[in-house]
């Protein structure tokens, strides 16, 4: 039953499975928000189109590329830890963190731009808009906000992994912590892969 030929940590398969199960619950968590989005966009297609027209597609594309590349760098950190190159692995983890931080900075600019226009949940300016637009912005803040929170938490966890990697707690024989961190980060990336076209590219 235990994977043969690989000397990983105790209950490697169990730990991996546990992470996947957690990700399934996260998937369903975001599913509820995507469901709201689907229904309201179906009911207010024109309003959604109008509201999305103000989104900065360049920034959104940059953010997408950032997360995609950060997933690559984190995958590279796992490849290198398997080769017992701890310092190089920590470097790739650091690269992932930097890209994640830039993503959050971009998000800050986007949110700041909207808030400076008076478009935040419950604002008088927003409440004068069409109902569909109010829903769009509500969903925008909640979904990108919660996603951003996940990015932030992911960065914190990866930072901790950097520490463990450099200290030698994560080795080429026992790197399940890093692997699970990778799974979490890739999941966050996938959520953004769907958020991007749904909020930025409504033609």
């Amino acid at each position: 039953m235990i994977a043969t030929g690989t000397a990983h940590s105790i209950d490697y398969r169990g730990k991996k499975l546990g992470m996947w199960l957690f990700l399934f619950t996260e998937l369903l968590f975001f599913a509820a928000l995507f469901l709201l989005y689907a229904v309201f966009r179906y009911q207010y297609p024109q309003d959604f189109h109008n509201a999305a027209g103000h989104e900065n597609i360049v920034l959104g594309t940059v953010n997408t590329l950032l997360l995609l590349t950060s997933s690559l760098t984190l995958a590279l950190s796992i490849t290198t830890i398997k080769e017992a190159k701890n310092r190089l692995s920590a470097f790739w983890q650091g690269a992932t963190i930097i890209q994640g931080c830039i993503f959050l900075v971009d998000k800050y600019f986007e949110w700041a731009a909207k808030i400076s226009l008076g478009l935040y949940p419950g604002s008088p300016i927003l409440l004068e808009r069409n109902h569909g637009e109010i829903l769009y912005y509500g969903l925008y803040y909640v979904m990108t906000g919660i996603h951003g929170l996940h990015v932030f938490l992911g960065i914190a966890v990866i930072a901790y992994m950097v520490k463990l990697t450099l200290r030698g707690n994560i080795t080429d024989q026992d790197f399940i912590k890093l692997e699970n961190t990778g799974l979490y980060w890739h999941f966050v990336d996938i959520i953004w892969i769907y958020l991007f076209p749904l909020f930025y590219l409504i033609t």
Partner: protein
Amino acid sequence: MFVWGALVLLLGATVAVAHLHLLAKYSVLAALFIASIKAGLVVTFFMHLVHEEARLKLMLLLAVSIFTLIIAVTFIDIWYR
């Protein structure tokens, strides 16, 4: 790994360009379809699903199916209001 990095990056760029061309009502489906391919690539290679046992792949399929089902069944209601 580098191959897939390049592929995923390419896909990201292509999607951005593809959507600048105004599509019809099927833009949502097209967007979701391309996004799903990208997500599929991330799951398969970055998340090493290729190397996982069949049981895990089945669990993921189940989770995604439930996701899709929730949205589909809700729309059966929404469509006929």
